[in-house]
């Protein structure tokens, strides 16, 4: 196949000017996107991957952002233009027509006051002058992106359809003017794995049909493996490694890439702890990198637990006494009320769930969004009142406690939330936030002892003593999650519910936090209920796991057994949908692609 270049980015430098300093978000980035090719850009938050794509679209807010140097050459039908130096009015001709973009949040990138059809029709009319029946075209696009019932979707408002359907509408909108380049900025991050799989398949198919070049930006290496031909790994605004997808996965050169590959929890093996990027390299203050180890496989082999160890652990856990017993728990929310304010219909968020948790174990709770796993976690804490059923913690019936008894009880059961950015009061210092619950529950007699304990806890979660007097906004997401963990531990609980506690974090940070959680479990003798939508994380963390769907328990059992031998159709589908990022998968995907090319 002949390689026609579509987009050539040469030595791009994009800077952000703040009051104190100049931040080079993209630093000397060059690559070329060819027709029919998919380039995956991988990197953690702040690596400059999104800024690169926004620069190409001319969507950098100026001020504070500015393209300082470099070219972005677009090979359009009418010749070559340099987008880096194009005035905004000229740029509009190429946006949508030549380059289209889909964003991460399908929930907010559609305008809520217009129907989906209207918005697609608007995009079509904007770029194509006359002679086109816009509605006809929009409906045809809806069929192309495999929306079921396109006529109904055309007339519905964004809030009436699901996240996956919204992302399909977004893709239809991006396709409406038949662009030659599609930039996809984390298009599947906010979606469930099963939906993600469908969207990825759709994108593969659209690319093959329209011969587009796709620039796919994501933090998830597993997704890249299922889709990309070429991979660019970015860190701190620079490209650290780029190359063929198979080469990157089978033989990563840069230690950072090796770290990223190794720190994803794998589904096949059971590890003692996860390697992180710091296992492979350390970065000096001047930015130079010191390599420590070089081989991913040998690192993973060293950390792997033997079958015997795993079996012993399971045996040990199952022999412990029951600490939490949930029986036929139901939590319903009223959807609409009748004239007298009595609920007519109920949303059955948790619908008759029963399980037991043994002391010292980690019970994983996995399911897609809306399956009721979060509601279940909150109901156990009675942050949401249950409709019926029983929750027994250590023989005490939680559902029957009065408000003041419940407050005392909260000392024993703690929760760590998903969003570390908003689960800390922005107007309280870290020290005050951690000490407040200690005071409420009368842990230690005076503030001096409490402060000492808080500082010891902060040090335990790898924070510094000086952080005691800082405010939350001074910390990164990973640090905040550590603070949240320290605060939960401050009241000396025995039972912790982790509600998507690592979902908002980058993979390497996620690995560090997961390792920390595991260490703390053994150190403080804790019991976890670990809730997540990410099956690979849950499987790594938990001894036993529960698969939930539509408020009901689909399957419950030992994590490894469920993964190896799922009995339930839903569990099977869930496991199949996970992008695993194994070499065999990459080979299969590349082969599929080749076959398609031959067919043409």
């Amino acid at each position: 196949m002949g390689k026609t270049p579509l987009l050539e980015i040469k030595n791009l430098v994009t800077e952000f000017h703040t009051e104190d300093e100049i931040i080079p978000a993209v630093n000397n980035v060059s690559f070329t996107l060819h027709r029919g090719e998919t380039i995956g850009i991988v990197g953690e938050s702040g690596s400059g991957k999104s800024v690169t794509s926004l620069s190409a679209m001319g969507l950098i807010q100026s001020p504070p952002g500015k393209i300082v140097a470099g070219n972005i050459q677009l090979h359009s039908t009418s010749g070559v233009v340099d987008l880096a130096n194009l005035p905004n009015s000229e740029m509009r001709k190429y946006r949508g027509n030549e380059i289209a973009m889909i964003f991460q949040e399908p929930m907010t990138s559609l305008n809520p006051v217009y129907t989906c059809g209207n918005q697609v029709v608007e995009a079509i009319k904007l770029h194509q002058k006359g002679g086109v029946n816009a509605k006809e075209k929009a409906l045809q696009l809806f069929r192309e992106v495999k929306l079921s019932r396109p006529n109904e979707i055309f007339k519905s408002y964004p809030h009436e359809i699901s996240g996956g359907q919204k992302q399909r509408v977004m893709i239809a909108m991006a396709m409406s003017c038949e662009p030659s380049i599609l930039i996809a900025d984390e298009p599947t991050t906010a979606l469930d794995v099963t939906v993600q799989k469908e969207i990825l398949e759709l994108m593969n198919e659209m690319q093959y049909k329209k011969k587009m070049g796709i620039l796919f930006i994501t933090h998830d290496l597993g997704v890249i493996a299922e889709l990309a031909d070429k991979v660019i790994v970015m860190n701190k605004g620079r490209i650290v490694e780029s190359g063929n997808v198979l080469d990157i996965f089978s033989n990563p050169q840069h230690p950072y890439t090796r770290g990223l590959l190794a720190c994803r929890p794998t589904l096949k093996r059971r590890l003692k702890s996860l390697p992180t990027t710091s296992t492979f390299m350390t970065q000096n203050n001047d930015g130079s990198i010191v390599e420590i180890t070089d081989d991913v496989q040998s690192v993973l082999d060293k950390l792997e637990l033997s079958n015997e160890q795993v079996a012993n652990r399971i045996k040990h856990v199952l022999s412990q006494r029951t600490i939490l017993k949930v029986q036929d728990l139901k939590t319903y929310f009223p959807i609409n009320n009748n004239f007298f304010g009595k609920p007519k219909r109920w949303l059955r968020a948790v619908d008759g769930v029963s399980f037991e948790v043994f002391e010292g174990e980690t019970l994983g709770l996995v399911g897609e969004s809306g399956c009721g796993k979060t509601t279940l976690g909150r109901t156990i804490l009675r942050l949401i009142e249950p409709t019926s059923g029983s929750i027994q913690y250590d023989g005490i019936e939680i559902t029957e406690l009065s408000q003041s008894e419940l407050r005392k009880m909260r000392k024993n059961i703690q929760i760590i939330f998903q969003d570390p950015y908003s689960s800390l009061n922005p107007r309280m210092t870290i020290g005050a936030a951690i000490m407040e619950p200690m005071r409420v529950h009368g842990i230690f007699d005076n503030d001096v002892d409490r402060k000492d304990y808080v500082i010891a806890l902060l040090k335990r979660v790898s924070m510094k003593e000086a952080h005691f007097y800082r405010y939350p906004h001074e910390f990164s997401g990973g640090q905040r999650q550590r603070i949240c963990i320290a605060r939960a531990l401050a009241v000396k609980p025995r039972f912790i519910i982790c509600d998507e506690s690592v979902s908002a974090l980058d993979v390497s940070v996620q690995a560090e936090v997961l390792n920390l959680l595991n260490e703390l479990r053994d150190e403080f003798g804790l019991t976890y209920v670990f809730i997540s939508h990410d099956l690979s994380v849950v499987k790594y963390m938990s001894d036993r796991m529960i698969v939930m769907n539509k408020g009901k328990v689909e399957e419950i059992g030992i994590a490894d057994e469920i993964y190896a031998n799922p009995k339930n159709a839903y569990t099977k589908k869930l496991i199949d949908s996970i992008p695993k990022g194994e070499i065999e998968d990459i080979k299969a995907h590349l082969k599929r692609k080749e076959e398609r090319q031959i067919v043409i």
Partner: protein
Amino acid sequence: MKKGIKWHLRILLILLLVSFFAPIITNNKPIYFKLNDIHHFPAFKDLINPNHTIIIDGRVLNSSSDWRNMKYQSVLWAPLRNGAMARDPHNQDFQSPLKRSVYNDGKIKEITSQHILGTDRQGHDVFAQLLSGIKYSLMIGFSSIILAAALGILLGAVSGFYQNVYKIGKGALIAICISLLPAWFYGFSIRSYAIIDGFQENAINGTLQILFSLLIFVGIIKIFTWLGKRIDKAFELGFINFPIDNFITGITEIFSSVPSIIIVVTVAAITGGKSTLILIILLGLSSWPVFARITRGEVLRLKGMPYIESATALGIKKSKIITHHILINAMPTLTVAIAFGFGSVLLAESALSFLNIGVPDHTITLGALLRSGREHIQAWWLIVFPGAMIFLLIYLFNQIGDRISERSNPV
């Protein structure tokens, strides 16, 4: 770039200081004099009570000439020798600041005037009145906005936090309803004379009396609530849901839909006279709905934040969650509202005083000064200077409000 707030606060502070120390800057009484070997500080006494009298040799000194013609052992006059309350008989009937005027020593001087901003019909100095007018206007403004904010934030926070799910025991609810009657009776009805007497003595005494009454009122309700809860526990009467949000929102709607001027006129007619205290209360009562609405909205927004949920999960009390976690985060918004509200209260007071239904006749406020300009439309100095001062104060408060909101927004 965020705009600075420093200069606005500095100008406001200077205005406050100047108006507080007005009796020392401009006064017909000396700052200090020595007579019969006794030291006197009449201007400083004016700071505390502008209506005080000094009796020397059995004679009450009140007119400017009395003060001027005393044979002092030693004396220190104020820089400007016009009192806010004193009349100047030589310069009555609207002396323009630009025209000649008769000086204290009896001589007539061309061009320059002794009254740098002119006089009104009775010969009051406009500059001296302006300075003390700022003080009274700000005092009335502050008092009523504090009243309004306290009431509004309390009610707004309660209605936003509990919404319509406030479970209360049947016994407790009945007890509270019953308690209102005796609480009112013992708190206010039989103490009404004590309160009125207190206010006739001075404002501080009156406020203390009111606070004492409130204490009795709240105390009686508390005792009844406690009894009600006991009854609930003993007989297990069960809980009913009190729709506290609807209730408070309803009251807010009623209060915000009644025009305050009509109430003020009516109340003035009933009480048979004008009173600063009643004005403060009325201004406060007519502006709290704004704060209640804003607070309710903020509380509803912040209640959904994960850190509120995590505070609940940590076992922190509801009252502490409201104050330490919700209200403290609502503070930027509320500060802005208070700054804007202050401007509008100031304007309302001016309007009422201009219509002669606000402050009593002998209290000088900026609005009351404007009113005296209505008597003689050619006396532009009675309109322009107080008007400009009202404009300046409102401008300052609006700017401060604006900039607080800008600064507290993390961009």
